[in-house]
């Protein structure tokens, strides 16, 4: 009954209670004999290959968890150079194969353009404002080239963003005394983010209109997204539609799920990445 090579030449034993002892009852050694006759192997219970394979994989997995971080770092640079020359984009699908990963918490990618996009600045300000895309383009533009670092580990080197400094919009609106923070809302209807007023006034925080010198695409959060260069990329809210000056910081979407509100690259979320700005 065990699955083992049958002893050559020994007739198969049918227990007495076998009700169907016809020629079909069980494949004996006679039919479809291999080219070389099978070796008798009744000694022992065979080799526990399955157990060895499973234990070996568990060991490898544990080693991989131990050294994986360092290995992936090396691989990242190799893969980045390969995928730069890979016209098919297949290498981009490999882990660490470079490029952005698409993360969205909403049902689908929202689309807005010239006619229906509006950016509202309100809250504790003297002049509430509504900007169309053309209005934002007419303001002084700042271009920054920095690495993008995601809190899940991937990093995209030297990515260019350009747009209006957030501080410009805040200045134009006139922040009232008593205000201490800024809250961002998005036209995907779900995502929110926030910064302290000091963080929002930094010279490396943009309301970005272009990414790598092309208009920000819908998948990347276009037509307008936030770009907070010194922080993990979850702070750079996509599909930005509202800037509200508030009295205190209200944690954003991911911050309700354990991410740090002050998302400095390398100094938060238990990570030690190189700073991006």
């Amino acid at each position, binding site marked *: 009954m065990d*699955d083992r*090579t049958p002893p050559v030449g020994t007739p198969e034993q049918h227990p007495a209670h076998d009700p169907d002892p016809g020629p079909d009852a069980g494949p004996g050694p006679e039919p*479809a004999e291999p080219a070389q006759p099978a070796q008798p192997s009744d000694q022992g219970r*065979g080799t526990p290959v399955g157990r060895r394979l499973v234990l070996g994989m568990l060991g490898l*997995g544990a080693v*991989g968890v131990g050294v994986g*971080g360092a290995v992936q770092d090396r691989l990242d640079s190799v893969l980045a150079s390969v995928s730069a020359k890979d016209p098919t984009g297949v290498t981009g699908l490999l882990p660490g194969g470079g490029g952005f990963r698409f*993360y*969205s918490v909403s049902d689908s990618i929202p689309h807005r353009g010239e006619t229906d996009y509006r950016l509202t600045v309100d809250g504790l300000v003297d002049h509430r404002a509504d900007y169309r895309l053309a209005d934002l383009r007419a303001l002084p533009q700042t271009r920054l080239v920095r690495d993008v670092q995601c809190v899940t580990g991937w990093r995209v080197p030297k990515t260019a963003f350009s747009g209006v400094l957030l501080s410009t919009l805040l200045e134009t609106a006139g922040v009232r005394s008593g205000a201490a923070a800024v809250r961002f809302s998005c036209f995907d209807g779900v995502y929110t983010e926030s910064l302290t007023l000091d963080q929002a006034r930094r010279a490396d925080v943009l309301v970005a209109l272009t990414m790598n010198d092309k208009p920000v695409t819908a998948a990347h959060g276009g037509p307008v997204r936030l770009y907070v260069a010194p922080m993990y990329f979850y702070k750079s809210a996509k599909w930005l539609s509202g800037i509200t000056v508030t009295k205190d910081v209200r944690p954003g979407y991911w911050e309700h799920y*354990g991410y740090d509100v002050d998302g400095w690259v390398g100094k938060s979320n238990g990570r030690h990445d190189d700073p991006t700005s």
Partner: protein
Amino acid sequence: MTPPPDPRAARGLRRFTRTETWVHRSVAWLMGVCVFTGAALYVPQLAEIVGRRRLVVTVHEWSGILVPVPVLLGLASRAFRADAGRLGRFFPHDWRWVGVALRRRRREPSLAGKFNAGQKLYAAFSVGALLVMAGTGVLMWFPRLAPLVWRTGSTFVHDWLALLFAAAITGHVYFAAQDPDARRGLRTGYVPRWWARAEHPLWQPEEPHDPPAGQPTGRHSRTP
């Protein structure tokens, strides 16, 4: 007078019990959900179509962690344990099966017992992969469990093994797609007798009736 046809002959040979087909079906569904949600988290084009990241993450985590459950429940069944034992052990003909497969790129059916060596290796690989994926998955699921280096390492192992596992599952599905009788075996529990003779000639099937109480199954046909 013609005797009425034996219904067992019409159904063929019993290859799997109801428990075993149930375990396989449950694992297949859970794995399917887990693989699809994993792809939706990982492949940018799919992620753009699916969105809903938090929901997808939750479904992925739970479907993944539940995959071993039907297998563990299955261990209560004697037939399941017997087949697990068969899958785990290599006999001389299995080594030769591997040799033929490597040298001549051929799956030699005459060297197959109830399971051929390829099926045995796939089974062991899936168990190992499943455990590693579950372990690294849990480390990422609960970030407080382990220091950051371990989490990065887990991501590394989880991502690369996922690609390997996906390739193996593709092979598994490909071979199944080519063999309707093997699929019937897992769907109904029965396979045609000619199929068993052709594909698994070294398989000595169990008797259709339970052995008398007290007599351990799988032992009485062993000759010293």
